[in-house]
C-alpha cells in the first residue's frame, strides 16, 4: 500500500520543496530533502527493508531511531548502513542485504523450516562430529553468515579527529539536555551539547505530551531558542556520543570526524529507547514501536499505515493513538494491557474521540505474511498468559508502547551499573561516578516538568562542580512520572512460538528459557550461549525482556539477575572513524632525499627510513654484493644518522657511564672511544654503542637505531635515583652521521679535512676527534663496524645533506658509492659483530653471546652486574657461535631456523649470509655448550624441515686479526 505524505505541521525534518530520487533494490523512489532512506521507503509503501540474520524473515521499521538492526541496508561503498539514519541524497543507490535471490523472494527463508533443528546453542554442539566434519560445514556456515558486502574498491574517505574542550558536556538534545545546557551556560560555564538527531529537541520533536498536542512544540521552541542564543553554549547536531572514557574523555562521532571532547563534567541526558512487546510474529513489517510511528509522522510526514492497532500499558500509547487520529489514520483498537487503566488526560481525550479501548487485553499474535494484516487479541489471564477468548482485528499497522529502557551506555562506560527496579519495572542506572550527572528519561523520569527540572538541576550541579556556582540551586522535582510507564511483563509466549525477544539473532522466548535450562543461568553466560544482545543492536531491544525471562526461569526476581557489561561504542561506527587519520610519525635523515635520488630502496627501521640497498628490486642481491665489495676493496659511505646520540656531561660523567654500561670507563682516555654494552637488571643485553670521551666530563654515546629512546629513558630513570652530577641529553636528531669505510676512506676524507691528522699514528683505531669536514664542524669517530678502515663523521643535522654531497664529490675520483643497511649487515656478520635484538633476545646475557670481554669484573656496580655474576656461576645453557656450511649450494637456512639435536631444540640461527668476501655461507647461531667448540658440527632444521649440517668456526670470519680496520 502507499501511505503517502501527511500535511504540515507533520514532517518537521523534511523540505517539501526539494524533491529527490533514489533507488532501492534497483527501483527508483521519490523522496524529500531531509528524508532518511527508511522514511522515504515507508512513504513509497516499501515496508520490507531487510531480512533477518538467521531465518531470513522480513523485517521493517521498528524504532526509526537507528537503534535496531531491522533497517540494515547496503550502500555502494558501505554495508550495514542504518536506513533510518542514512539521509537520502539525489541518486543514492541502496540495496537490501543478507538474502539469496531477491529481497522480496529470499530463497534462504526456507531456513526457517529448519528452526526446530536449530535450538539455542546448537552451533556449539553441531558441526564438530564426527571428527573432521567442520571442514565440510565451514564453507556452508561461512556463506550463510555475515551481513552485507565490503567494496574493496571503494574510494578512501577523509576521516580525521579533533579535540574539543568545554566545562560541561551535555549528551542529549531533548528537554532534559537542553535545560541542563542552558542552566550550566547561564551559570558561566562553557557548554557543549551533543545530539544525534538532525535538530535538537529530542522527544519534543515527535512525542505528544498533552492531549491537545501543543505543548511539546512550544516547549521545544523555547528551549532551542534559548540554547542557540546563548554565547557560551554550542549545540552539535548529528553528533553521536559513542563512548565515555576516564577523566571525562567523551568520544563523539560527527560525520567523518571523531571529536575527542575533554569536559570537566558531563551531563548524560540521552533519554530512553522504547521497548518492543513480545508476542507471536511481533517482527512482521508494520509492527513497530509507538515512538517509531510518531517519528515517521511528525518528523517525515509519513503515514505508517491506514488502519492501526495500538498496544499499550501507559499514557504514551494513547498519545500515539491521538497522533494517528490527527494524521487521519484509523485506529481500530487500543489494547491496554492493564486490567483497569487509570483515568488520565491523554486516555480521556482518546476515549472522547471514540477510540475502542480493550482493557486487560494484549496483541497475542500478528497475522500476515509480507506485512501485518491483522492481529489476534486476547485477554490477559496471568503473567504472560492469554487463556481467555481471543479475536482478530484487521490492521496494517501495530504500534507498541509498553515501556522504555534507559540509553545508559555512556554511564556504564564510566562505571555506572544498570539495576532492575521493581517499582518502575525498568533498568535504572545506579552508582553514577563522580563528575557525571544524569537527567531525564535516562534516569527514569518521564513527566515533562520533572524532566526539565532535572535537566536544570543537573546543569546547575555540573557548572557548580567546575567552579561556576553563583546561581541559586534549582528546585529538584518531587514527582518524576517514572511509575506506571513500563509494563512489568509485556511478554506473551505462544504455543507455536515465533515470539521474538531478540530480533537481531532471531531468538524467541523458548531460546532464553532453554539456555537457562542448559545451565547458563548467569546473565553474562546466558548472553554468550544464547547470543541475546550480541547482534548489531547490542541488546537495546532485548536486554530487558531477556532479564525478565531468565529471572522467571530461575525463579528469582529480575533485580537479582544483574545486566551484562556495556562497552564502547554505544552505537555502530565505521572503520573509517576508527582507523582514519591516525598519526604515524616517521623520521628522515638529513640526506634522505639524496638516497632516494640515488635509487635507494628505503626500509623502515623503527620510526626511521633507511636505505636498504641502492638499485632496482630485481637486482637486490647483486646490488648488496656490489656495495659490500666496494667497502672491502675501495671506499663507500653509509648514512648512520639514525644511530642514537646521547650526551653525558658533568662532573660525574665517568661514574655514570661506569654504572650504565658493562665496560670500565673511568680510565678511558680523552680522545678515545670504547665499546659500550648495556644490560638490564636481569643481566640481559639491551643495547650497545660506542662511548666517545671528548672531555673529562663529557661522553658522547651512540646507541642502536631502535634502542636510542629506550637507552635515554633508562639513563634518566636511573639517574633520577642516583642523583649524580650529570646531564643527559638525547641529541640523536641534532647530529647526522656518515660512515666512510674502505681502504681508500682515509684518502677520500683527507681531501676535505685539513684540521685533523688522519694518519694511523695520530688518529688510531677507536680514536675520536673534533674537526671540520668541508667546512662543517664535525665529530670524527674511528670505528669499524664493517671491519675496514673507516670513520664515522657526526655533524650538525642542518649540514647533513651538504656533508653527504661533499663526501660523494671528494670520492668521485676514487669511485665512491653509497651502501645500505643490507650490505652493512653482511659486512658486520663477516666480522662477527652482533646486532642487538637480532643476535640477542630478551634473555641473552653477555657470556652466552661471547661478549664477556665487554664486561668489567672489577667494577663495584653496573646495571645487571649481580645478575650476570649469578648467571656466570651457573652452567651456561647455550652459546652463540659462528658457523659455516660445508655445503652452501643447497637451500640456505634462514634467521630463526632452529638448531636441533636428536629431535630436540637447542637454539636458533640468528644471522646467516652468503659471504662474497669468503665465498661461503656463514652465520651465527645458538647451540648447546658442548657443541660450541670450533670444529664441532650441529644441525639446522632448514627449509621444509631438511636438516642442514653446519660447522662451528672461529669468529671473526673475516680478517680475524683486525688488521684492516686498524690500518
Amino acid at each position, binding site marked *: 500500500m502507499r501511505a503517502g505524505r501527511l500535511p504540515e505541521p507533520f514532517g518537521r525534518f523534511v523540505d517539501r520543496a526539494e524533491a529527490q530520487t533514489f533507488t532501492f533494490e534497483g527501483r527508483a523512489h521519490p523522496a524529500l530533502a531531509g528524508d532518511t532512506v527508511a522514511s522515504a521507503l515507508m512513504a513509497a509503501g516499501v515496508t520490507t527493508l531487510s531480512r533477518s540474520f538467521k531465518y531470513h524473515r522480513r523485517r521493517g521499521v521498528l524504532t526509526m531511531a537507528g537503534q535496531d538492526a531491522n533497517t540494515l541496508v547496503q550502500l555502494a561503498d558501505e554495508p550495514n548502513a542504518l536506513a533510518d539514519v542514512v539521509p537520502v541524497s539525489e541518486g543514492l543507490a541502496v540495496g537490501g542485504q543478507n538474502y539469496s535471490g531477491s529481497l522480496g523472494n529470499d530463497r534462504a527463508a526456507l531456513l526457517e523450516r529448519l528452526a526446530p533443528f536449530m535450538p539455542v546453542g546448537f552451533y556449539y554442539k553441531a558441526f564438530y562430529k564426527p571428527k573432521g566434519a567442520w571442514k565440510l560445514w565451514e564453507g556452508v556456515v561461512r556463506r550463510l553468515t555475515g551481513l552485507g558486502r565490503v567494496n574493496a574498491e571503494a574510494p578512501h574517505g577523509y576521516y580525521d579527529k579533533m579535540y574539543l574542550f568545554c566545562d560541561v558536556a551535555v549528551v542529549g538534545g531533548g528537554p532534559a539536555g537542553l535545560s541542563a545546557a542552558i542552566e550550566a551556560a547561564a551559570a558561566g560555564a562553557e557548554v557543549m551539547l551533543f545530539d544525534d538527531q538532525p535538530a535538537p529537541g529530542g522527544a519534543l520533536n515527535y512525542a505528544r505530551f498533552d492531549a491537545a498536542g501543543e505543548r511539546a512544540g512550544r516547549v521545544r521552541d523555547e528551549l532551542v531558542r534559548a540554547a542557540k542564543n546563548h554565547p557560551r553554549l554550542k549545540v552539535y547536531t548529528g553528533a553521536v556520543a559513542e563512548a565515555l572514557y576516564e577523566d571525562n574523555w567523551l568520544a563523539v562521532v560527527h560525520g567523518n570526524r571523531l571529536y575527542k571532547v575533554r569536559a570537566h563534567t558531563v551531563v548524560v541526558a540521552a533519554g530512553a529507547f522504547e521497548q518492543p512487546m513480545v508476542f507471536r510474529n511481533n517482527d512482521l513489517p508494520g509492527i513497530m514501536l509507538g515512538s517509531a510511528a510518531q517519528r515517521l509522522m511528525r518528523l517525515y510526514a509519513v503515514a505508517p499505515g491506514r488502519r492501526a492497532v495500538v498496544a499499550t500499558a501507559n499514557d504514551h500509547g494513547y498519545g500515539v493513538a491521538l497522533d494517528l487520529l490527527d494524521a487521519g489514520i484509523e485506529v481500530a483498537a487500543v489494547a491496554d494491557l492493564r486490567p483497569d487503566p487509570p483515568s488520565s488526560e491523554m486516555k480521556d481525550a482518546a476515549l472522547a474521540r471514540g477510540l475502542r479501548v480493550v482493557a486487560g487485553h494484549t496483541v497475542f499474535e500478528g497475522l500476515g505474511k509480507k506485512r501485518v494484516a491483522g492481529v489476534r487479541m486476547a485477554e490477559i489471564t496471568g503473567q504472560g498468559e492469554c487463556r481467555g477468548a481471543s479475536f482478530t482485528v484487521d490492521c496494517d499497522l501495530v504500534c507498541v508502547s509498553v515501556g522504555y529502557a534507559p540509553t545508559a551506555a555512556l554511564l556504564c562506560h564510566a562505571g555506572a551499573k544498570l539495576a532492575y527496579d521493581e517499582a518502575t519495572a525498568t533498568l535504572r542506572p545506579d552508582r553514577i561516578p563522580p563528575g557525571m550527572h544524569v537527567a531525564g528519561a535516562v534516569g527514569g523520569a518521564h513527566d515533562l516538568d520533572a524532566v526539565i527540572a532535572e535537566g536544570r538541576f543537573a546543569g546547575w550541579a555540573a557548572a557548580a562542580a567546575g567552579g561556576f556556582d553563583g546561581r541559586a540551586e534549582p528546585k529538584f522535582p518531587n514527582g518524576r512520572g517514572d511509575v506506571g510507564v513500563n509494563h512489568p511483563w509485556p511478554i506473551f509466549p505462544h504455543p507455536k512460538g515465533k515470539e521474538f525477544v531478540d530480533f537481531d539473532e532471531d531468538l524467541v522466548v523458548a531460546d532464553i528459557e532453554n539456555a537457562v535450562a542448559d545451565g547458563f543461568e548467569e546473565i553474562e553466560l546466558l548472553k554468550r550461549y544464547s547470543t541475546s544482545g550480541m547482534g548489531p543492536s547490542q541488546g537495546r531491544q532485548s536486554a530487558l525482556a531477556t532479564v525478565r525471562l531468565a529471572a522467571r526461569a530461575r525463579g528469582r526476581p529480575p533485580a537479582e539477575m544483574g545486566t551484562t557489561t556495556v562497552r564502547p561504542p554505544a552505537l555502530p561506527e565505521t572503520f573509517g572513524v576508527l582507523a582514519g587519520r591516525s598519526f604515524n610519525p616517521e623520521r628522515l635523515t638529513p640526506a634522505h632525499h639524496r638516497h632516494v635520488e640515488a635509487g635507494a630502496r628505503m626500509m623502515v627501521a623503527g620510526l626511521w627510513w633507511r636505505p636498504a640497498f641502492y638499485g632496482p628490486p630485481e637486482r637486490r642481491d647483486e646490488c648488496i654484493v656490489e656495495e659490500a665489495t666496494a667497502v672491502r676493496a675501495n671506499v663507500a659511505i653509509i648514512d648512520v*644518522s639514525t644511530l642514537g646520540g646521547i650526551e653525558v656531561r*658533568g662532573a660525574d660523567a665517568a661514574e655514570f657511564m661506569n654504572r650504565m654500561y658493562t665496560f670500565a670507563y673511568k680510565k678511558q682516555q680523552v680522545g678515545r672511544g670504547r665499546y659500550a654494552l648495556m644490560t638490564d637488571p636481569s643481566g640481559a643485553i639491551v643495547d650497545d654503542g660506542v662511548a666517545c670521551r671528548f672531555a673529562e666530563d663529557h661522553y658522547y654515546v651512540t646507541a642502536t637505531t631502535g634502542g636510542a629512546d629506550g637507552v635515554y629513558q633508562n639513563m634518566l630513570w636511573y639517574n633520577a635515583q642516583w642523583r649524580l652530577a650529570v646531564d643527559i641529553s638525547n641529541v640523536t636528531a641534532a647530529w647526522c652521521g656518515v660512515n666512510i669505510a674502505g681502504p681508500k676512506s682515509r684518502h677520500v676524507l683527507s681531501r676535505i679535512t685539513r684540521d685533523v691528522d688522519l694518519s694511523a699514528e695520530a688518529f688510531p683505531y677507536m680514536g675520536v676527534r673534533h674537526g671540520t669536514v668541508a667546512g*662543517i664542524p664535525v665529530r670524527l669517530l674511528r670505528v669499524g663496524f664493517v671491519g675496514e678502515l673507516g670513520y664515522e663523521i657526526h655533524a*650538525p*643535522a642542518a649540514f647533513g645533506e651538504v656533508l653527504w654531497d661533499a663526501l660523494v664529490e671528494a670520492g668521485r675520483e676514487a669511485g665512491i658509492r653509497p651502501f645500505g643497511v643490507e650490505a652493512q649487515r653482511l659486512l658486520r656478520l663477516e666480522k662477527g659483530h652482533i646486532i642487538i635484538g637480532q643476535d640477542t633476545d630478551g634473555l641473552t646475557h653477555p657470556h652466552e653471546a661471547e661478549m664477556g670481554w665487554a664486561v668489567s669484573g672489577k667494577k663495584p656496580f653496573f646495571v645487571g652486574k649481580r645478575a650476570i655474576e649469578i648467571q656466570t656461576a651457573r652452567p651456561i645453557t647455550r652459546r652463540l657461535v659462528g658457523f659455516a656450511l660445508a655445503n652452501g649450494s643447497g637451500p640456505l637456512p634462514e634467521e630463526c631456523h632452529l638448531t636441533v639435536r636428536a629431535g630436540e631444540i637447542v637454539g636458533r640461527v640468528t644471522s646467516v649470509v652468503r659471504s662474497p668476501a669468503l665465498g661461503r655461507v656463514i652465520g651465527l647461531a645458538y647451540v648447546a655448550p658442548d657443541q660450541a667448540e670450533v670444529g664441532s658440527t650441529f644441525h639446522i632444521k632448514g627449509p621444509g624441515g631438511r636438516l642442514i649440517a653446519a660447522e662451528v668456526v672461529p669468529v671473526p670470519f673475516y680478517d680475524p686479526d683486525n688488521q684492516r680496520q686498524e690500518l
Partner: protein
Amino acid sequence: MDGQVARPPRRSFIYRELEAAGARFVAVGDAEVAAHYAGDDETQALSSLGIADLSPLPRTGFKGDGAVDWLAAQGIAIGEASNHAVRQADGALAAKLAPGEVLVLDGLGEGEAICARLDAAWTPVASAFWPVPRRDGAFWFLVTGEHAATMFAKVCGVDLRPDKFSNHAVAQTSVARTNAIVVRDDLGAVPAFHLLGDSASARYMWHCLADAAREFGGRPVGLEAVRSLIR
C-alpha cells in the same frame, strides 16, 4: 678542496617541501630562509591561518644547575615560573622549560643575534649546565592566525584557545604523536604559536599541519610577511 672552505649556509630540514610550495629563499645571517611564496598575499593568510618555517634561524638552549643565573648574568630576562616565556628587549624570546632549562629563540626582526652571543659566551670549564643543540635538534615552525588554535586541536590535546592559553604560555606536549614545545607569541593582534619538535620529524610534522590546516584555508607564509607584523 680543503678544510678551510667557508661553512655552507644552513637550510631548512624541509627546504624541498618549501620549494615545492613556491618558496623563495633569502639569506638571513648564516641561514637561508623561506622569505615569501609565489601567489596570493600572505598577510591575509597570516591573520587567518599561516604556517611559517623558521627552522634555519638561530635558537639555542641551556640546561642544568646555574643555567638560569648565567643567562640572567648575560642579560636575559627569565620569569619565575616554568612554562612561561619572556620577550627580550631585542625581540628574542626566552622560554623557561624547567627550573634549570631555558629555550631561547632569536627575534624575528633584525635585532641582535642573541643566540650566537650566548653560544659563544658559554664555556665548558667548570660549567654545571650545558648547551642544548636546539637549532639542529628541533624544527621551528610558526603557526599564526585566528584559526591557529582550532587547527592545533586536530593535532594536539592541549587547549590552546586564546582565553585558555595566555600569550607567552608554554606547553611541552605531544603534537601529532611527537614530542613538541608550543609557545604562544602573538604578532600584535594576530594569535601566533611557535612550534618546535624533533628535526628528523620535520617533514612529517609539516605535512600533518598542512593537512590539518586545509579546511581553514591555511597555507605557508614567509618570513617577510611575519616580519611585516612585527615592524
